[in-house]
């Protein structure tokens, strides 16, 4: 069973193609057409679909090379998916403002600031 249709019914494929990333909004169909992913969260959101593709390209699915050291030093998780959450929050805040839903917009803004403080630190001088 793979994202390229092996062993999948047309309905299953159609459903897979419409599945959209909840951060950048890209669908698997769009990725298949363009060959480029939309954001880092796609590797989490489409993990099951991407895995056979990655195995096919590289003959492996586990990274064994260098790893960032910054996160550990700052007491943050090594994976950066939490920080990628900013993409969804920014979109949500924009939508809330467009609907004049200022309460939700404020909540989003606070969540954005908290994530930025935690991950990005103070802006460089």
């Amino acid at each position, binding site marked *: 069973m793979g994202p390229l249709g092996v062993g999948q019914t047309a309905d299953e494929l159609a459903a897979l193609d419409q599945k959209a990333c909840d951060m950048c909004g890209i669908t698997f169909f769009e990725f298949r057409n363009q060959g480029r992913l939309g954001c880092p969260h796609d590797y989490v959101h489409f993990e099951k679909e991407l895995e056979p593709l990655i195995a096919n390209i590289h003959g*492996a699915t586990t990274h064994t090379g260098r790893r960032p050291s910054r996160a550990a030093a700052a007491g943050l998780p090594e994976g950066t998916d939490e920080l990628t959450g900013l993409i969804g929050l920014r979109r949500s805040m924009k939508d809330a403002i467009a609907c004049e839903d200022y309460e939700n917009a404020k909540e989003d803004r606070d969540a954005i600031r908290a994530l930025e403080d935690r991950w990005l630190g103070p802006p460089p001088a």
Partner: protein
Amino acid sequence: MTMNLESLTHGVGEWLRGTGPESDIVMSSRVRLARNVAHYPFVSRASDQDRAEIEKFLRDRIATAPVGRDLDYIDVGRLEEVDRQFLVERQLISREHAEAQGARGVAIDGREQVSLMINEEDHLRIQCMHSGLDLAGVWEQIKAVDDQIEKVVPYAFHPRFGYLTACPTNVGTGIRVSVMLHLPALVITRQIDKVFRSLHKISLAVRGLYGEGSQAMGDFYQISNQTTLGKTEEELLEQVGDVVPVLIDYERRAREFLVRETQQNVHDQVSRAFGILRTAQTISAEETMQLLSRVRMGVLLGLIGDVQIADINSLLVRTQPAHLQKLRGVELDTKDRNIERARYLRQHFEAGGGAQASQN
């Protein structure tokens, strides 16, 4: 942090310096790392505003790293086409980066060894290049640059998949190791296709001078790794590095064969190539490169005297369209460029070649 491209025009850049180990065959060694920041969409899905913010974020952060002090920043989006092309010919940016849209830039060190492309296919592409065969030296240098930037930039990373990239073909290490070789004797003796077929079998890619999709001009070829995940950076460096001495050996033997078995023929070929370069009245960039390639081999085989390799190398880049226009200070169409190129070559060789052009 801005740079005057004119100051670059008078040098030849790192990849044509013509120095370093095995530089009779190996033009340059290069490593690039693909990196993305975690909190923005990848470039192809980023809005204009996202791209501008990514560019600013990376510029500001990199400026705080030690390496940032040695870099000049060029706003590629604001450059004229001829200047973008100039940077491509110089191998400081990719063709894709030159032709893209929106906010993007490149930071370059004064020796043209390090270049950081911002908003290419990935948010950040770090490139390091040395003249000749020096993958170990390149790796040490790029590793230090990557470490410095990683301290100030949150790279998108997945515990199992590694560094995350816009295209799954680069995920994991994000590394592309390439060595550019000049293999005229393997081309002349028609062994080149056989060599490439065996390289493909061991998962190495062969490309022309300007990377993906470009034709092999002037017998210059880039050998690089095709996979980026499941092996360490050192293993991937070895995968490419191990095959280079073999290719050097093949090329040397083919050159010896040519001199031994067909000396008159080869001498005739390179002399004719030299003759055309010195006397032509109009000449295309492609033909120039092809002939310079043959002359380069002739010099190395001792069949042509009075010409320096560094001199040929400098002509290889200065006769390309954007360089020629920058040197002449005017924009020229193809036809006029061909006339101007021929004039430039004649003047160059009449003036005795080497002296003024070999300085870098």
